[in-house]
């Protein structure tokens, strides 16, 4: 591996880590607060990408307006899921998971009916790029994703640590009944968690739309990766999700570059199996939850 290829792969991995962290943190937040494994999380990411396809590529609205619309739209989809599926099934964790599989199939079909099964071509919003001395390239399109991930995740971290809502959210994640006894509204915190979790997936999809050629089935590999990340990081650990996103993205990108993509997926899954067998609470998980 030449030094140029090495640095280029590091940059590619940083970009992959950024959008995976956005997705995985939302996934963990929903699991932590609601106790539900949201299998449809990859399709929320897909919905974000298609918002950009519809508004930016087809209608010609400015890129960042389309990204903002994707954030709000997918956040509202999250609220819909909370209201229609997860609230009636609150005492039934497997039921929530199964209902989210149903929702996933519906979202996929809507995308197929609305846009067709073919790959969408989203033109880049900018041609600017940073060229380093040794010829390594970082396009602005990818830089947006990295900057957005750092900005949004820092904002989320401050929100959870400093604000009253954040305290309520974390309290609900730790012990729902006790939080309710203290006068916190379970429904409100659930809505908040669902909105934030879904919107993060939506923004990841919207920002990466020009880079990945959206299809209605793009969510599947993403949700598998998110699964690996939250299992390895420990269910319910936001910090673990961020750190393992970085770890996973580097391992995956380097194996893909050096060997091939299928082997990279196998390595990721074996990593998850190993963690499940040796330490089911994950590398950063504090307590048993299932």
């Amino acid at each position: 591996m030449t030094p140029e290829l090495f640095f280029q792969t590091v940059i590619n991995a940083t970009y992959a880590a950024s959008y995976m962290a956005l997705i995985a943190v939302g996934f963990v937040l929903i699991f932590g607060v609601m106790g539900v494994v949201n299998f449809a999380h990859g399709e929320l990411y897909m919905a974000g990408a298609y918002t950009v396809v519809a508004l930016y590529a087809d209608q010609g609205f400015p890129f960042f307006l389309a990204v903002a619309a994707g954030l709000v739209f997918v956040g509202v989809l999250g609220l819909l899921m909370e209201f229609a599926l997860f609230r009636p099934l609150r005492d039934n964790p497997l039921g929530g998971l199964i209902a989210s599989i149903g929702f996933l199939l519906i979202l996929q079909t809507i995308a197929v009916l609305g846009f067709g099964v073919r790959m969408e071509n989203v033109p880049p919003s900018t041609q600017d790029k940073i060229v380093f001395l040794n010829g390594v390239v970082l396009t602005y399109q990818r830089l947006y994703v990295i900057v957005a991930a750092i900005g949004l995740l820092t904002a989320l971290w401050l929100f959870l640590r400093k604000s009253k809502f954040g305290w309520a959210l974390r309290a609900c994640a730790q012990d729902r009944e006790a939080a309710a006894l203290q006068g916190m509204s379970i429904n409100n915190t659930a809505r908040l968690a669902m909105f934030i979790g879904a919107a993060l997936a939506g923004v990841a999809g919207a920002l990466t739309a020009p880079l990945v050629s959206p299809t209605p089935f793009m969510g599947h590999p993403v949700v598998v990766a998110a699964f690996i990340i939250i299992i390895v990081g420990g269910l319910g650990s936001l910090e673990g999700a961020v750190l393992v996103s970085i770890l996973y993205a580097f391992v995956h990108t380097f194996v893909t570059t050096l060997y091939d993509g299928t082997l990279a997926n196998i390595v990721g899954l074996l990593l998850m199996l190993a963690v499940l067998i040796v330490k089911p609470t994950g590398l950063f998980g504090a307590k048993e939850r299932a």
Partner: protein
Amino acid sequence: MHKPENKSPNIVGFIGFVLLVVVLAVLPHMLSFSQQEILVLLVINVLLVCSYRLLTLTGEWSLAHAVIMGVGAYASALASKELSVPVPLAMLIGASVAGFLAFLLSFPLFRMKGFYFLIASFAAGEVIRLSWKWSDLTFLFGGPKGIKRIPPFPDFLTIDFYEPVNYYYLCVVVVAVSLLILYRVEKSRIGLTFHAIHWQDKLAESVGVNTFRYRMLAFVISAFFAGLAGALYAHYVGAIAPKRFDVEEMVYILIWAIVGGTATFYGPIIGVVALTILNEVVLRSLGVDEMRPMFYGAVLIIAILFMPNGLEGLVPKIKNLFTGPPKDGNRSLTPSQATE
């Protein structure tokens, strides 16, 4: 479309059995060619979903069942194509390889329960499925395109099994025998132990039941028949690919089991038959085949929200209309209770 659950032979059960045999025998002749092909797949899917139910008896929900079906399909296809093993024997080899793989997978997987088992079974299944796709193993598994030109079931006397109707009869016989075995297992001491492990695993352990061994046994039997279903599929269709056994196929198995219900032996059969008929009759006549996932998704959500006992929960109610209230309560398990 299920075997009558009679403890002692009686005249109603006998008439029901004869009717069932007559319907199964006559049915393909009333259908078009393409419907006959769907009927063959339906019979194979009945075995698939019933074998899945055996594992759920112990309280574990696996996400590897579609891949295990694929293991049976790949093993049988390779044995007959590359090693020239006679197809009927290859099918048994396929089923046995699937069962043996389940035996090996038991050691890591049954260290876990519930949600963790679900996720780990998914990961293990995906690793196996991706190895079929992996370019370094293309010489063996054919990569993403899979295996083509799998030898068909050989002619027996003058019966040509390339004809869907004849293959359908073959499948009905194989599946009926398999279901009988699954049924006997469930009603035996072993099956009762599975129930005990599901509801009271600590208690079962305390009276000397080796829960690991029984979980493994359920997994191996379940995998054997899933592998057999895969082998029946492979030699009928003639071509298999990794895509055919992916998580989407697994989702359909889950939907059939959940919509039908898993408390009774006939629940999953009702689920797969009802949904296949609805899918073929309603969606095909409307000409909206791409709506299929949405239809299944909506059915799944409606079932989990409003019908947690599945379609089988309706059976006693319909019976009551004719015979009055039942003598004993009909206990049924739902996925929600399964995790608690």
